[in-house]
């Protein structure tokens, strides 16, 4: 049993037309036992930048807290929010610092950059960045997610259609994974608003 599969998780992010969506499952388990059905894996860094963390739950929480620390200091010194690309580099650097005793999580970063251009990327637990133009996935359900996203994704979707696509991809993938599921948490971010929605899927 891998430590990455201890708590169970599924996170996916997709790019749309001047918008992005990031979604995760809500299960927190201890191997086969489900402990919580409202675990927050996606967190806001600032109004145009979100990070979803899959993997070991304690590292998900601690890594997020460390990133908030760094971002707040950056904001105070620079008097502006961090760009998504810069933030991705920061996450990568923080993960690599612990190269020989890593944080056991895989982040998915999604944000709106300059000119409202959406940016998504994922990385492994020691900070290897993977930039993508369409979608990124991580977690125990990642293999199913790859398949579902590849099939359902098309470029330049508007916010509502993007929401439908990412929700369907997430719910169908977590149904094939016993360690993730119990609903979904979807954020769809456009330059003007952040829409947060909870999905009800198979509650098992």
């Amino acid at each position: 049993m891998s430590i990455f599969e201890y708590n169970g998780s599924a996170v996916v992010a997709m790019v749309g037309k001047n918008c992005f969506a990031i979604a995760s499952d809500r299960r927190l388990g201890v191997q086969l036992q489900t402990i919580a059905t409202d675990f927050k894996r996606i967190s806001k860094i600032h109004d145009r930048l979100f990070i979803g963390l899959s993997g070991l739950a304690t590292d998900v929480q601690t890594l997020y807290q460390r990133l908030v620390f760094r971002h707040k200091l950056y904001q105070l010194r620079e008097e502006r929010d961090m760009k998504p690309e810069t933030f991705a580099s920061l996450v990568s650097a923080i993960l690599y610092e612990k190269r020989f005793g890593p944080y056991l999580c895989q982040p998915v970063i999604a944000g709106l950059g300059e000119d409202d251009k959406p940016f998504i990327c994922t990385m492994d637990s020691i900070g290897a960045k993977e930039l993508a133009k369409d979608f990124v996935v991580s977690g125990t359900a990642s293999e199913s997610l790859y398949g579902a996203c590849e099939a359902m994704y098309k470029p330049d979707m508007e916010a509502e259609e993007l929401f439908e696509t990412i929700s369907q991809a997430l719910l169908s993938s977590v149904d094939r994974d016993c360690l993730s599921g119990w609903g979904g948490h979807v954020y769809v971010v456009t330059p003007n608003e952040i829409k947060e929605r909870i999905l009800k899927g198979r509650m098992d």
Partner: protein
Amino acid sequence: FPLSCPTIKVHISRRLTPSPFGRPSKNQRRGDQRSKAVPSSQKMSRRYDSRTTIFSPEGRLYQVEYAMEAIGNAGSAIGILSKDGVVLIGEKKVTSKLLQTSTSSEKMYKIDDHVACAVAGIMSDANILINTARVQAQRYTFMYQEPMPVEQLVQSLCDTKQGYTQFGGLRPFGVSFLFAGWDKNHGFQLYMSDPSGNYGGWKAAAVGANNQAAQSILKQDYKDDATREEAVELALKVLSKTMDSTSLTSEKLELAEVFLTPSGSVKYHVHSPDSLTKLLVKHGVTQPAAESS
């Protein structure tokens, strides 16, 4: 004292300064050589003011006091506590047209979402301390997942400042701060701290040039149940009376307020120059600038 003869001067000064810390430093000896017919208390101070970490015979720390002197020459800042917010106002000393003022401010700094400060003194020292305060606030939030209580933040920063008066052999920071903040235990608070590392909670306080005059006016005119607007008015009036310059325009001032938004979160708002000008006019405090030649 046969201090007229150079060689004997050096000889005698050595014997007359039985420093418990060994040989007196070069500075101290030179100080003695330069002093002519001066009263003994002043001569004594010359020997004890080169090092921050020793007391004078009168029980004073001269470096700390000299640091406070440095602040007395800097631009003033005033803070006033009201029941729905804290007002900070500062006098800008550097007002050249060439200065790029689009971004940072000279007197007001945000430490965390719920705490801000006004600065008086040496700006470079202030920058170091502000950075220290910011990191301390974030470390607390990382550890306890809640905003750092204002007094704890002030205390930890003052502990840093105190360290420079007791060990290390480094000079104290030449900065006084006025901290304005809100936390859920004590609501709105105003603290003043000085180079010695001492701090106190105040209802209204002034630091920098003419701070004693400002403090006495505040003592007379401060009202306990003032609103934020009344506090702004009082701050502008006091600063206009104590500022040295002939004309009071929005370029010479910075005004910031810490208050709660209707949704319950703390907001730190620095007034734009236009809004400041409007306030100056509204409270009848603005004086026309001298005709530009």
